């Protein structure tokens, strides 16, 4: 080969690489085909062209790049020497790409990742492997304050951390803990939510989560689930005596409701769905929806269908009252409603003997309220008459009697008040002939006997 031609070729080559005759021959083994002087010069030129980075981001970028480069250098030829102080964007991307190919990911700044989630950009949390990095990530999310960002981080932590590690971390971060409890509730992980609440010393809430978990599988398993948490789980929590008692009562009620409903369903006569109701009372239950109904609904049901059941039977109203320590007021109202719905006379239940042997309403139930409900439930007229007579103040008795059109009582009040004018007016306002006759007779007798009746 002709040397001058060769020289021309090498000097004119756009990709000038290696000159065997040059001073750099001593670096013949250098794979780059360039001298340190040349690289230094090139580096200087390149650096001059790089725009000046802001101080903060430079530090962060430097750190990121250093990480990726250090990871790279551990797996490749150590003779690679990079100037890492001022990397270009392309260089950073290349390094990231390279590092991912060797399965050692770079860690983006937590702040940037959190920002990406907030702005709806794509993000990758898998690079946060160390616990300390995860903590920083969570703290950044909390600092930003967006619930959805916190949720995204928490879902990542749920997948990547064991509960034993995650819960203490959340214990120190109340806002994150609350968000996580909400996530667990959505995922129907009630037991985990209960444990976390326990860690946060919110034991009452923990019980509620456990209690809610019993309704997850449907009506059939509620009783057994409740029994299970009552026996096994509740002992792990303190200061939940009231809640424990409530759960125990619920189990007791379910134990009764099942057999009561079954017994009723076996009876030949079908139950007629009674549509009578009042705005002042709850809706009555039937055998079909008895299981799962409330204690007082069950009591009312038993007062309707098992009024005379002996105390030792599950369906006995008195048995229910004693077992669940119901108040007199709770019992009386439901017994009254139950009996009236069965078209029975409810008055004997309501009456007790007063101080001088006179009857009075037990448990200080309000007579106007009883009358109102009796009226809504189409109570028998006789009931109204008897109840009205128990109203002590004549003015009140008069008003109530007028409201429920118990003419004889209205007339009697007017007679006792010796109010002839009102009596005459009342006579003109009614159609009942027997009551009109009663007024006429009274007026006739009183005219002859009491002269002052005119006043």
């Amino acid at each position, binding site marked *: 080969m002709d040397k001058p031609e060769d020289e021309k070729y090498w000097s004119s080559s756009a990709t000038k690489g290696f000159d065997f005759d040059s001073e750099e021959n001593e670096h013949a083994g250098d794979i780059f085909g360039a001298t340190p002087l040349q690289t230094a010069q090139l580096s200087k030129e390149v650096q001059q062209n790089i725009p000046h980075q802001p101080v903060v981001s430079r530090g962060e970028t430097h750190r990121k790049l250093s990480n990726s480069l250090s990871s790279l250098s551990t797996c490749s030829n150590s003779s690679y020497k990079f100037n890492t102080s001022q990397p270009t964007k392309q260089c950073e991307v290349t390094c990231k790409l390279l590092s991912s190919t060797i399965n050692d990911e770079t860690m983006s700044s937590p702040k940037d990742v959190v920002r990406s989630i907030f702005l709806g950009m794509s993000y990758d949390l898998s690079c946060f492997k160390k616990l300390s990095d995860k903590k920083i990530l969570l703290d950044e999310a909390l600092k930003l304050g967006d619930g959805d960002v916190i949720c995204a981080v928490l879902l990542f932590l749920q997948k990547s951390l064991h509960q034993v590690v995650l819960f203490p971390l959340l214990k120190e971060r109340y806002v994150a803990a609350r968000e996580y409890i909400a996530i667990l509730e959505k995922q129907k992980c009630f037991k985990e939510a209960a444990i976390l609440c326990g860690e946060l010393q*919110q034991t009452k809430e923990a019980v509620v989560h456990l209690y809610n978990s019993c309704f997850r599988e449907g009506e059939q398993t509620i009783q057994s689930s409740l029994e299970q948490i009552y026996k096994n789980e509740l002992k792990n929590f303190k200061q939940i005596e009231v809640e424990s008692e409530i759960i125990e009562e619920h189990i007791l009620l379910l134990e009764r409701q099942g057999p009561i409903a079954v017994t009723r369903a076996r009876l030949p006569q079908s139950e007629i769905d009674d549509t009578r109701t009042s705005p002042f009372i709850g809706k009555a239950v039937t055998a079909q929806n008895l299981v799962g109904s409330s204690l007082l609904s069950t009591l009312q049901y038993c007062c309707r269908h098992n009024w005379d059941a002996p105390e030792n039977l599950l369906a006995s109203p008195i048995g229910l009252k004693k077992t669940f320590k119901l108040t007199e007021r709770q019992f009386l109202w439901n017994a009254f409603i139950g009996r009236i719905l069965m078209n029975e006379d409810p008055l004997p239940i309501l009456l007790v003997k007063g101080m001088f042997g006179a009857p009075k309403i037990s448990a200080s139930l309000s007579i106007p309220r009883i009358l109102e409900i009796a009226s809504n439930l189409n109570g028998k007229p006789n009931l109204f008459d008897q109840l009205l007579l128990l109203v002590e103040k004549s003015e009140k008795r008069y008003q109530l009697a007028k409201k429920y059109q118990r003419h004889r009582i209205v007339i009697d009040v007017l007679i006792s008040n010796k109010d002839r004018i009102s009596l005459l007016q009342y006579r003109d306002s009614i159609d009942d002939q027997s009551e009109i006759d009663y007024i006429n007779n009274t007026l006739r007798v009183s005219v002859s006997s009491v002269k002052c009746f005119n006043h």
Partner: protein
Amino acid sequence: MDLGNLRQSSQFRLLNLLTKIAPSDVQKDLVIHEDLMKPIDLVSGARLLREQGVDKMFKLASVAPPWKNYIRLYFIPSIYAVAENVAKQLKRHGVEKTVSYHIIVVPKVLTVIHSLFESLGVLDFVTLHSYSWDFIPLDSNLLSLELHHLFKASFLKEENSLLTSVAKALMSFECLLGKFSCVMTLGEKSQRVHNLLNTWKNEIQPTFPVETEFTHLIMLDRNIDFVSLLLTQLTYEGVLDENLKMKSGFVYLDANGAEGSQRLMLNSASDEIYGEIKGKHISAVFQHLSKKAKELQQKRDIKNTDSIEEMKNFVSHDLRRIQSQQKSLALHISACEIVMKRQAGILEELLELQEDAMSGTKMKEYLAFLEDSIARQFNLATILRLCCLHSIMEDGLPEKEYHLLQRQLLQAYGYRHLTTLHYLQRLGLFNQRDSKMISLEPLLPDRLARVAHAASFRSERMPFRKICQRLNLLPLDESSQPNPCAKSGQHPSYVFGGVYTPLVYHFVERCLKEKEPSLGDYVRCFGNNLRIGDCSHPQWGARGKILVCFIGGVTLAEVASLDLLSRQLGRQIVVATTSTISGSDFMESMTSQHTDT
């Protein structure tokens, strides 16, 4: 100011999204969740959807509808349980290569929802989209995001994912109608929304109109004033909401709101009569309606005797207006009748009890009523409202009283309401007074114990009765008689029959003091929950319009009180809210077994 811009902006975004999914000439089926039907109707209307190629529309049900087209859209709120049902429904149906499913989640595809779809492996044939509308104008002074589940999510479960959507809506409001110069927040969530709003603005750097009509933004959390939620509203619109349940500005006059039933649009711009009566005390409404009926009759009668020419003119111009007014009058009278029938024999007694709770008198009788009503299983929502009102005003109930009521409530309405009572406790509505814990608070061993204590007992707050006294919110005089001007509508307490002035009325009034807000009392009452913007801003004293934003819902009684303030100050006040809310609605949602968020 044109609030209609908000609607257009929402409409534009919706149509853009639909076009992005598939061009308008491609037919699509749409399944829509019940809660979104009315708002979508207000945003775009069915006609616009049809123009975008929506062929068949179905209401979301537990089973898939009879599909007709290959592009199938779902419109659902960002409620996990709803999303889960849809995802499972799609999973059951499996993959059909020719079919594509698009789930539009309002206001946002939450990470937890995305993760759900991912975990069920349906993202191969399902695409998730976020869509958030701007504040929807329900009336001339009322805007709503119609995010009814936000209260439960943010205040009860303390998950704050939806607050970003509120911040976005406020930013959009600013972009359309001008930037707020003065911002005041009362409550932790409001503060959070304000921070998120600033973060959004820093990130996006939007351009705002140079001219701004709204100078002030006042934000409040719903839990700052629960009493306004618990007391019975006594304005006409409030009564309608409590009894007939307003849904996106509409009420149905029959109980179930079944199709074909008469509905009443509660919008003063389209219904002159409603504009006249909406803020009136309920006792004055029927009188007004009967007067109006006579007036309309007179107008018709007068015209009957006029000349043919005048009659022609009358028929072509006035008759339609009169007929439309008569139609609306008939609807309002029907609504009054329904409410009166429903409340007969109950309302007066309840109002008396509420008066007692507010004044703190006759407490023995109050408790007797509660016990008696609970034993009869009287309406649970009403009873809980009274229990909560009592608890708030007394700063929690004594231990014995609390346990008695708790036990009796559970025995009467079912043990499952253990959860309901727990929710109410978490919200600080039905609590046990714990004097020991309060006095021991500084001695609690560690920070965690104090945080837990603060969260469960809310003892860092000043007792509400003290707040009321300090801010003069209880207008009852010494003889416990309601303020005489209560029913006349001159005093803001008229919205609650003279027993309580809504806190928001007082707060907004104090914020708008000429030179700088006089909020010293609020600082003492609410401490860090109150944040006041830069008082030195030149716009602070400007008499611009005011946007009062409620996080967690507003009652229509509060809106009426702000309307009164607006008239008194001669400045326009517009209320923006995440949703409208009433006490009955709130309690029903608390007692529901489905508390999904």
